[in-house]
């Protein structure tokens, strides 16, 4: 085996330019493949990180105005949600995983001692903690007892904590005053995506008691299970309208009565786009790799022709057809894998560089490009593809080489 490699390295060293040109085509092909796939992953990661504040299967429903008459009721009525609506959705829509009613209140001021700020209060059910992608830094979220007893408790963002407790005092258990009503702090959180949206969570029942001015519940947040594609999503929305229509008094065909927004829909759409983008990038990358492989096959063919005489001599000296095939194929495989390896390294290097440069551009904010990693699996399969291609690239030229007849070859001066 070492002997064969020695022989091949020797021939490659004697034909440096040829070896380089052949290798370059393959290295370039695999480089493009890696960079393209990394770009696809980076783009996907970037977009997904912008949506990290919510679960990807999140849907919210807000009451709207009817635009059609329904069972003797006029059009242009306002739809109103209350606890019954939440309960009805919980009981009648099987896909629902977590559910929370929401009531908003925009405060004039929230203060602790001399410190104050202005944040929105959001009344939510205990399950809301599972709907929003947040990390509890200390304390706890709103629980059933808080909700049942309409406790005035607050679950605050770390920015609010920093503002109200600037000297690092313990905030848990302290009372803050929001528009004249005091709330006890039960927990501190931050958003997973690093967002600075410093909502103050309170129990839904408390918020309803304090802030409902007859508008009812302003939003129902929920996460769903088992909705994988647009068809399922659309069916789900139809069923939701069909179930809530009779309860709330609107025509199920009246799309303005309920305003439904889903990150579920968005993430399905984005998922589809990225599947397509990735496929496209694979095709382009693979095509450029194929160009490199054809280059190797072509050059090996020329090589075999160039070396007709040498192959003839070797045959006269006792080289078997198999030993000729072996040396041509191994040479092709050697060039493709060695060059491919260099291409992979350069591709990974370029992606890493892009990751550093672009990744450092938008700290904390929106970024379209993040962590352009290429999985080990992709790199490995690219290498396997390379080796197979090397064999194929070497096969035709080597078969041609075995057909060389020693006598004729040696006469070809």
């Amino acid at each position, binding site marked *: 085996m070492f002997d064969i490699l020695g*022989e091949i390295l020797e021939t490659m060293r*004697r034909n440096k330019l040829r070896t380089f040109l052949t290798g370059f085509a393959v290295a370039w092909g695999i480089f493009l493949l890696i960079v393209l796939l990394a770009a696809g992953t980076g783009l996907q990661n970037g977009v997904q990180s912008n949506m990290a504040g919510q679960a990807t299967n999140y849907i919210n429903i807000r009451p709207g105005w009817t635009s059609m008459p329904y069972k003797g009721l006029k059009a242009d009525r306002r739809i109103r949600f209350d606890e019954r609506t939440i309960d009805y959705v919980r009981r009648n829509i099987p896909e629902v995983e977590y559910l929370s009613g929401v009531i908003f209140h925009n405060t004039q001021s929230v203060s602790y001692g001399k410190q104050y700020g202005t944040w929105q209060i959001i009344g939510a059910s205990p399950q809301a903690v599972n709907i929003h992608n947040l990390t509890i830094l200390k304390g706890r979220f709103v629980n059933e007892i808080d909700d049942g007893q309409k406790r005035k408790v607050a679950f605050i963002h770390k920015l609010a904590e920093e503002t109200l407790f600037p000297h690092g005092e313990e905030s848990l258990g302290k009372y803050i005053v929001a528009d004249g009503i005091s709330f006890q702090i039960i927990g501190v959180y931050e958003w997973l995506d690093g967002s600075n949206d410093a909502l103050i969570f309170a129990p839904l029942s408390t918020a309803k008691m304090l802030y409902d001015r007859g508008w009812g519940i302003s939003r129902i947040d929920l996460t769903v299970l088992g909705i994988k594609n647009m068809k399922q999503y659309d069916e789900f929305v139809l069923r939701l309208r069909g179930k809530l229509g009779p309860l709330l008094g609107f025509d199920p065909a009246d799309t303005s009565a309920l305003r439904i927004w889903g990150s579920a829909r968005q993430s399905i759409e984005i998922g589809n786009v990225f599947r397509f983008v990735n496929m496209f990038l694979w095709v382009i990358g693979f095509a450029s790799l194929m160009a490199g492989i054809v280059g190797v096959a072509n050059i090996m063919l020329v090589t075999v022709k160039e070396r007709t005489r*040498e192959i003839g001599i*070797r045959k006269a*000296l*006792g080289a078997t057809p198999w030993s000729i095939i072996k040396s041509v194929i191994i040479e092709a495989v050697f060039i493709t894998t060695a060059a491919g390896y260099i291409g992979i390294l350069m591709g990974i290097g370029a992606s890493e560089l892009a990751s550093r440069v672009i990744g450092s551009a938008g700290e904390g904010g929106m970024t379209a490009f993040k962590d352009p990693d290429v999985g080990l699996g992709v790199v490995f399969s690219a290498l396997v593809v390379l080796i197979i291609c090397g064999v194929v690239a070497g096969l035709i030229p080597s078969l041609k080489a*075995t057909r060389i007849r020693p006598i004729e070859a*040696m006469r070809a001066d």
Partner: protein
Amino acid sequence: MIKIRDLNKTYNLGQPNALHVLKGIDMDVAAGEFLSIMGASGSGKSTLLNVIGILDNYDSGEYILDGIPVRDLSETSSAELRNRKVGFIFQSFNLISYKNALENVALPLYYNGIPRKKRNELAAEYLEKLGLKDHALHLPSELSGGQKQRVAIARALISRPSIILADEPTGALDTTTSREVIEIMREVNRSEGITMLIVTHEGAVARATDRMIYLRDGRIESDKHNPNPVIEF
């Protein structure tokens, strides 16, 4: 060593431009002989050499090399047989241009599966025998014609073949070098006992051998013993 009976070979058999090159050759060569085959160009001598060297096949007849019938061999087994039994010396030397003298000489042993170290030792030994010790690491382009042919002789010898076939070995050499090469071949024939068959159209070369076979138009015209071989260049 060589037994040939009614050997026929036709190029483009069955086609309108068929060329009957060997027309029933009968020939016996004993081990250790030093003989030549002469003939004008087109007489079929090169074809006969190729058949004997298992570089080409034949249509009918019988060819036995060193007790082994050579007939319908696969490419692989004919390559192996060639490697073990036959050494070649060519008019145009046929050295591999990017390999130095030592590597060229060692090449047949590579195909014989002998390890590199052993190969190079043997090759150095044969180069020394042929007076090329100081040129072992030279490329063919750095050697004179005579030196190249001596490298080729060393290469033909190294696998210790039963027979060495030389196709116009002096064709590309001047008279002084030709003499030198023929002397070496005689010497090798005597000391190593290797059968030496030279194909040539030069009478001077043929007269240096013990037996002269004349080929004309695909048939053996004469087969004479040369009782008094002389090297006269």
